[in-house]
C-alpha cells in the first residue's frame, strides 16, 4: 500500500476545478472535483444527461481530481451502486484510495432504499391533531387525578409512621420554596398594593370617596391578591424547578434507581415537596397580604392625606376577620396543586433535553391556569355563601 497523496499536498486547492460529467458514444466521462462544495451542481449536471447515461459502456475516471463521500454518493445514486462497483472494480488506472472510497460508498448504498416520507392530506392531519389534543387533555386530567390519589394514599400511609418522615428534605424544601421566595413575593405585592391604591384613588376621587381606597386595598389583598400573587409566583418559580429537577433525575435514570432500591419516588421526592409547599404558600400569602397593605398604606399616607392611624382604624372597623380567612384558606389548596403538577410533569419527562423543557413549560402553564380557575370558582362560591 502506497502512502496516499493527501489533500493538502495536492497542487490545486479543492473545488478549484468544478466537477463535470460528459456522455459521448456510450461512455461516461467524469472530470474535475467531485466534492461537497459542488454537490448541487453535480446533481443537476447528472440529471441533465440523456437517459442512456445511466447504463454506460465505459466509465472514464482518469481526469477525476478530488472526490469525497458526497461526490461518490452522487455518482452511486445516479448509476446505481452495483453498476458503479462493477466499473470501479474493472478500472485499473484509478488511484487506490479513490477506488477504495468509491467502493466503500457504493457498497454501503447497496441495500439502502430511500425512506418514503408518509403522505397525508392537510385536512386529515388537522383533524388528527385536534383529536390527539383532545385525547391528550383527557389523559392529562386522568393522570393528574391518579397522581393526586397516589400522593394522598402515600401520605396517609406515611403519616402514622414517624420513622418514615423525611424531615431534612422537608425543611430544605421549605427553605427553598418559602424562605428564599420571601423577598420577591414581598416586593411584588408591595408594588401591586401601591398600584391598586393609586387606581382606587383616581376612580373614587370623582365620587369624593377617596377614603374608601383603604377598604379597596384591604379587601382585595386579604381576599384575592395576596394569595393569587403568591401562588402565581410560586407556580413560576417552584413548579418549574420541581419539574426540571425530577425530569433531570428521570433522564439520568435516578428514578429507576430509587425504585430498584425498593424505595418509593413519591415518598422520597413528592411528599416532602408537596408538604413544604403547603407550609410555604400560606406563610408567603400572609406576607403578601401585609406587604400589599403596606404598599397601599404608603400611597394613602403620602398622596391621599389619609394618616396611618386613620388607615388602621378603618381596617379595624370595616374589615372582618373572615376576609382574611377566606383568602388564606385557599393557599394550602393552591400549594398542593402547584406542587403536585410540578412533580407529575417531572415524572412525565422522556429521554431528551427537549422533553425537560417542554414539561417545565407545561407545568408552569398548567399550575397558573389551575390556580386562576380555582380562584374564580372560589370567589363565586364565597360570594354566594355571603362569606
Amino acid at each position, binding site marked *: 500500500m502506497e*502512502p496516499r497523496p493527501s489533500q493538502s499536498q495536492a497542487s490545486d486547492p479543492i473545488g478549484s476545478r468544478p466537477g463535470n460529467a460528459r456522455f459521448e458514444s456510450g461512455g461516461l466521462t467524469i472530470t474535475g472535483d467531485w466534492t461537497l462544495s459542488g454537490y448541487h451542481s453535480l446533481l443537476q449536471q447528472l440529471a441533465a444527461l440523456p437517459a442512456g447515461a445511466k447504463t454506460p459502456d465505459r466509465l472514464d475516471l482518469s481526469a477525476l481530481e478530488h472526490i469525497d463521500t458526497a461526490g461518490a454518493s452522487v455518482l452511486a445514486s445516479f448509476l446505481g451502486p452495483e453498476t458503479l462497483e462493477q466499473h470501479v472494480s474493472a478500472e485499473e488506472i484509478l488511484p487506490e484510495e479513490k477506488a477504495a472510497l468509491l467502493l466503500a460508498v457504493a457498497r454501503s448504498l447497496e441495500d439502502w432504499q430511500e425512506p418514503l416520507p408518509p403522505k397525508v392530506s392537510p385536512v386529515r392531519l388537522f383533524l388528527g391533531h385536534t383529536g390527539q389534543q383532545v385525547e391528550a387533555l383527557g389523559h392529562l386530567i386522568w393522570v393528574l387525578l391518579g397522581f393526586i390519589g397516589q400522593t394522598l394514599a402515600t401520605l396517609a400511609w406515611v403519616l402514622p409512621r414517624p420513622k418514615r418522615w423525611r424531615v431534612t428534605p422537608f425543611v430544605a424544601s421549605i427553605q427553598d420554596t418559602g424562605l428564599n421566595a420571601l423577598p420577591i413575593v414581598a416586593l411584588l405585592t408591595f408594588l401591586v398594593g401601591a398600584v391598586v391604591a393609586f387606581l382606587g384613588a383616581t376612580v373614587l376621587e370623582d365620587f369624593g370617596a377617596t377614603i374608601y381606597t383603604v377598604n379597596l386595598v384591604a379587601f382585595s389583598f386579604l381576599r384575592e391578591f395576596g394569595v393569587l400573587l403568591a401562588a402565581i409566583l410560586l407556580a413560576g418559580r417552584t413548579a418549574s424547578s420541581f419539574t426540571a429537577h425530577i425530569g433531570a433525575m428521570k433522564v439520568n435514570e435516578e428514578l429507576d434507581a430509587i425504585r430498584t432500591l425498593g424505595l418509593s419516588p413519591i415518598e422520597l421526592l413528592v411528599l416532602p415537596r408537596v408538604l413544604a409547599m403547603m407550609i410555604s404558600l400560606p406563610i408567603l400569602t400572609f406576607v403578601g397580604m401585609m406587604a400589599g397593605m403596606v404598599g397601599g398604606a404608603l400611597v394613602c399616607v403620602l398622596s391621599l392625606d389619609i394618616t396611618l392611624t386613620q388607615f388602621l382604624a378603618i381596617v379595624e372597623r370595616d374589615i372582618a376577620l373572615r376576609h382574611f380567612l377566606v383568602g388564606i384558606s385557599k393557599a394550602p389548596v393552591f400549594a398542593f396543586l402547584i406542587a403536585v403538577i410540578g412533580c407529575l410533569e417531572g415524572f412525565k419527562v422522556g429521554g431528551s433535553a427537549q422533553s425537560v423543557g417542554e414539561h417545565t413549560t407545561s407545568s408552569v402553564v398548567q399550575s397558573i391556569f389551575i390556580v386562576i380557575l380555582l380562584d374564580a370558582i372560589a370567589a363565586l362560591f364565597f360570594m354566594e355563601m355571603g362569606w
Partner: protein
Amino acid sequence: MAAVAGTRQSQHQAEPIIKVSNLCNRFGEHVVHEDLDLNLFRGEILGVVGGSGTGKSVLLRSIIGLRKPTSGNIRVFGETLDALSPRARSRMEQRFGVLFQGGALFTSLNLQENIAVPLIEHAGLKRPDAERVARMKLALTGLPPDAALKYPAELSGGMVKRASLARALALDPEILFLDEPTAGLDPIGAAAFDELIVTLRNALGLTVFLVTHDLDTLYSTCDRVAVLSQKRVLVADTLETVAVNPDEWIQDYFNGPRGRAASYAAANRTQRQQGENV
C-alpha cells in the same frame, strides 16, 4: 496489518499533523498533565490508553480546543487553535470530526437532521440536498434506512454510536477523534465498530485519534498506542513495542487476564486470515 505498520513507520519522518508539546493541565491543585508530548501522524490510527483519571478525555478536549490548557503548546496542521481568528478557527474545526463518549446527538432532531446540521451550516447545502448526503453518511456507517427518521431516544447504544460517527464524518474531516467508541457496546457490536473504523480510515484516508479502554480495539485497529500515565505520555509506539515496556501499569494492562485474552484473540485472528490467504 504488517504492511500498514510499515507504511506508518516510513511516515514517521514526516511532520506530524498534531503536535502536542509540554502540555500542562491543572484543575485547581490537581495536576492532570505535566510536560506531556504527543504526535499524531497522517493516516494512522493512534490509540490512547491509560487508567481512569489519567486525563485521556482531558487531552482530547485540549486538542480539539474545548479546554484551554494551563500551559503548553498544541499545534494542529501547524497552527495553534487559540491564535486563530474565529473564522479561521471554525474552518479548522471543520477538518475535525469528533465522536463523543455518550454520542452527543441532538435529542430534539432526528438522525438525518442531526447529520444535516453541519452540512447546512458549513457546506451551504440546501435542506433536501443536505438530508440526502446525511442519509448516505448513515448508510456508510452501516445503519438501516428506516433509522434516518428516528430520534436518538429511540435507538440502541450501538446505533447511537454509529449515528454520531456519521455526524462526525459529515464534512469529510481529515482527523477523527473518537472518545471510547466501543464503551457500552456488546462484543459483537464493538468488533463490528472496530472493523468499521478501519474500513473508513482506509477508504476515506482518515487520521484517527482514539481514546479507549478496550483492549480488543487496540489489537484490531491501532497502528500505534500511546500510554498515559504519571501525568504524561509514557510511551507511544507500535503495540508490540509498548507491550514489552517494563512499566508496572503497562505490564498489568497488557499482561493481565484481559490483556492476554485480547492478545490471544488477535493472534488467532491473524492466523486465521493467513490461513485463508494461503
